[in-house]
């Protein structure tokens, strides 16, 4: 035991030695000593020489209070020659900070004077990094937990290897400049300015909010993106939106590296507070769109085409060979939508499709007119093809190549595209209804009217193809049902009230208490219950169909046959009156909140 005791004591002794060595012989002391020696040999001034001889290593620090919080920057402890112009050719850390006229430094009597004095600004305000540390790993922010590694110089160990090299470069420091230099065309921050323009041009502002710049609500608020996220995360989120959130529906913009870099630098400069800005400035900041520059004299058609390209509509929509993979195809827009529909939809997408996720863009009214006139000019019908080809070209983007309603963009559409493989539904409806849906479209949904694009026999052929290859069951002989053509119950307050009572008792489980189709059971139901406040849809449906659906249920869906549960025709009439009563308000008012 005595031997073990001796060994353990020895370990204690050794560790003490190591710790003491560590704590008393710092690397920065060596840097400082080297500086004193070299400066002594460089100087010709006797007074300075004696002064240098008298200096001994100590921690140097700038305490900066100008920016709200107190910053303590001890960078000068290693970088001690930072303000000594004789050291401009030395290797780091004994290199003097460059002087530059672009940074506002001026030369007076042969001596440079800094615009941004270290005593006023410190170091980390511009460079990032951790001012309090005295070891490279910590002070340069190489430690993965430090939120602000040296901008453009340091990548942390857990950053993605594939683009970590792209995150280096002086230009990243512009993000720090823009904290004070908020002017949109400040010449010192070309990347921030470019990033800001891209933020508009790529329609980022449609989904993302940045205080004083944009008001999008679909994506995360980016007002403090620069404070919350490191450049690695920002870059990744732009080039691979789904890397962090698998359910993100942010499109992939396929930007080139220079554009991504500018966007990252711009976003990194968004820290919620711009140091140069007062509260009132921020309050006054207005939503300022960058206009797309259209050469004067361009006709609307051409301008519209340019706008669609520059406003990045194809980030979501499809137009010929460009496909964002999120929103419907615009290639035949002139045949399937009219200009009235388009301009309503631009002003408020929810006015025509109640549950559309398309953001409300704040383009100038002229731009909308131009885009509309371009889109309505797209009147080239698809070439005559076999029904299967036609289906693939026009239908499969939403309804899916297997007809299961799970096309590429189906996830983003509400109501969801019809699943043709649910034969119980498909065989229980008359063929005329499907023909009508194809030819006239379904109001309030993304299903457009195809009658201008497809001839009647083409429609018939496509429908035949769908029924044959997806539904695969023979159309059932439909027995005639006792359903009134028109609601026999006249609308009255009592009728609506009674309808509401029944609705609250029987229907809210699936259709929801707001009748928006989002009841508690709706999560497990496919197809989803109807949103009964989808005004265009409800108004387009005949009473007869409502009666039939309620009384006899909708086969292939969760809607039961309510006649079996004791609802009479009068009850159903009351419910129909109630549903209509919810959809009476003028459109604009109903959707004003969106």
């Amino acid at each position, binding site marked *: 035991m005595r031997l073990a005791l001796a060994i*353990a004591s020895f370990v204690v002794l050794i560790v003490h030695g190591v710790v003491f060595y560590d704590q008393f012989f710092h690397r920065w002391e060596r840097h400082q000593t080297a500086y004193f020696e070299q400066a002594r040999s460089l100087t010709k001034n006797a007074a300075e020489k004696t002064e240098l001889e008298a200096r001994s290593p100590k921690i140097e620090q700038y305490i900066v209070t100008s920016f709200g919080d107190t910053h303590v920057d001890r960078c000068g402890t290693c970088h001690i020659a930072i303000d000594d112009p004789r050291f401009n050719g030395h290797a780091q850390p004994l290199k003097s900070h460059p002087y530059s006229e672009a940074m506002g430094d001026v030369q007076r009597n042969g001596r440079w004077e800094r615009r941004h004095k270290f005593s006023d600004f410190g170091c980390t305000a511009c460079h990032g990094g951790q001012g309090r540390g005295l070891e490279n790993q910590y002070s340069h922010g190489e430690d993965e937990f430090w939120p602000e590694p040296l901008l453009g110089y340091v990548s942390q160990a857990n950053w993605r290897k594939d683009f970590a090299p792209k995150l280096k470069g002086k230009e990243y420091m512009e993000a720090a400049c823009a904290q004070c230099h908020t002017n949109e065309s400040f010449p010192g921050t070309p990347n921030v300015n470019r990033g800001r323009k891209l933020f508009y041009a790529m329609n980022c502002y449609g989904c993302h909010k940045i205080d004083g710049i944009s008001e999008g609500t679909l994506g995360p608020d980016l007002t403090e993106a620069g404070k*919350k996220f490191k450049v690695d995360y920002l870059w990744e989120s732009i080039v691979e939106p789904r890397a962090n959130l698998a359910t993100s529906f942010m499109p992939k913009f396929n930007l080139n590296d220079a554009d991504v870099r500018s966007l990252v630098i711009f976003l990194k400069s968004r820290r919620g507070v711009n140091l140069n800005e007062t509260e009132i400035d921020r309050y006054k900041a207005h939503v300022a769109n960058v206009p797309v520059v259209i050469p004067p004299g361009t006709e609307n058609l051409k301008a519209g085409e340019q706008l669609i390209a520059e406003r990045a509509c194809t980030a979501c929509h499809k137009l010929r060979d460009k496909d964002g993979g999120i929103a419907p195809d615009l290639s035949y827009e002139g045949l399937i939508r009219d200009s009235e529909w388009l301009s309503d939809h631009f002003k408020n997408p929810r006015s025509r499709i109640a549950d559309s996720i398309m953001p409300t863009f704040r383009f100038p009214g002229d731009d909308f007119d131009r885009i509309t006139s371009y889109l309505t000019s797209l009147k080239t019908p698809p070439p005559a093809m076999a029904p299967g080809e036609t289906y693939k070209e026009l239908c499969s983007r939403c309804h899916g190549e297997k007809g299961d309603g799970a096309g590429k963009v189906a996830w983003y559409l509400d109501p969801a595209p019809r699943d043709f493989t649910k034969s119980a539904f498909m065989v229980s409806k008359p063929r005329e209804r499907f023909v009508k849906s194809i030819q006239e479209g379904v109001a309030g949904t993304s299903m457009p009217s195809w009658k201008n694009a497809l001839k009647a026999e083409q429609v018939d052929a496509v429908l035949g193809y769908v029924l044959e290859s997806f539904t695969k069951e023979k159309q059932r002989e439909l027995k005639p049902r006792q359903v009134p053509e028109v609601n026999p119950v006249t609308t009255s307050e009592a009728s609506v009230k009674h309808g509401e009572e029944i609705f609250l008792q029987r229907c809210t489980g699936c259709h929801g208490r707001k009748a928006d189709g989002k009841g508690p059971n709706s999560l497990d139901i496919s197809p989803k219950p109807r949103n009964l406040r989808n005004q265009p849809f409800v108004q387009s449906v005949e009473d007869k169909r409502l009666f039939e659906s309620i009384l006899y249920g909708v086969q292939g869906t969760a809607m039961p046959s309510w006649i079996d549960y004791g609802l009479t025709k009068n009850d159903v009439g009351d419910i129909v009156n109630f549903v209509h009563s919810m959809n009476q308000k003028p459109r604009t008012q109903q959707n004003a909140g969106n």
Partner: protein
Amino acid sequence: MSTETKDPGVVRALRDLPSNLWSSIFRNPLPSTDLERSSTSFTNFFLHIHPVKVHKNTLRPIYTLGLGLISMFLFLILIVTGILLMFYYVPSTQQAYDRMLDLRGTVAFGIFLRNMHRWSAHGMVAMVFLHMCRVFFTGSYKKPREFNWVIGVVLLLLTLFMSFTGYLLPWDQLAFWAITVGTAIAGYAPVIGHEMQFLLLGDSTVGQEALLRFYVLHVAVLPAILVLVLAIHFWRIRKDGGLSRPEKALAVPAVVRVRVEASATKKTYGLQGFVRGPFTKVGNVPDDSVYAWPNLLLAELFVLVLTVSVILCVSLAFNAPLEEPVNVMHPPNPAKAPWYFLGLQEMVSYSAFWGGIGVPGIMVGLLLLVPYLDRTAHGVGRWFARERLLANTIFLTMVILNVIFIIIGTFFRGPNWTFVSPF
């Protein structure tokens, strides 16, 4: 010796000053006889906590594994490093994190002190728990040591709470969210849960009030209570007859009255031989005991040096974690409690009430009641005694279950508390 025969002059007094000073402080010379050994242990304030003689069984490393002692020494390290850290720490949400950065980067020995404090704290939780296991598996909680076991359980809880309150102080993401999770577990208690949580945090969320409360609890209230309870724990060890040992030793007459002449030199000195009065100890057998000086002290010194050297090496090799500054809007996923509460968090993920309050409450209750439920007197003083198979099996199952839950919670839980493999 008599003052009348020689009246020492000032010069002589000065010359003898060092040796007089020495003998006035330490009273005894380095002991060479049994009397001096007894007297040394007995008359020294710091050694007085020891018995003059200890049973040989007490000194068997394989019996105690030194776990209680290690816990004690870790606590001493914690006190020393903790006090030093207090000189630099400010319990303010504005400053705490910056102070951590200063400790890590600038303060001499700062990072080392913090490492020692951190690893000792983790070590103490583990060692106190293992000490409890040792006491159980050797059946040492049995009569007359029942209440000391209860005190021990209280000490375990105090240790956990000490460590938990200290966890918040760095005020980084790790601390903030661990405490958010930990106090949320307390909130699951029925009726008083939310009040308890509020009392602890001083607010509905973790913030400045919580930081201040945790600080005061950590540096003042809990250490004071812990020291007091610890003193009782030690005092009772002696009053309950020293450490437990095999029953065979008890075959000797239980209570004896011994009177000893203090002036006689060639004599074996019984325990408390310097006190005139009844011999209160039970089952002390002169043949099986040895003098505390130097046997016990050497063993203790060994454990101390070993503990210190391990902590020093660990502190040199591993830095205490310091993550991002607190960001209330950006919880890490998953947010995990300190490791010793991860078993609880894992159970909470199955059932909030049962995992957070029910099961741990029952477990602590059972622990407190163990000596009163298990009244058989057999199987004391031996590891895994056959007579105690049932009790040991039940306890071991509980321990293993807890450890498994902690391991699952620590290594096998990823984002959204889904099961992930660490390999």
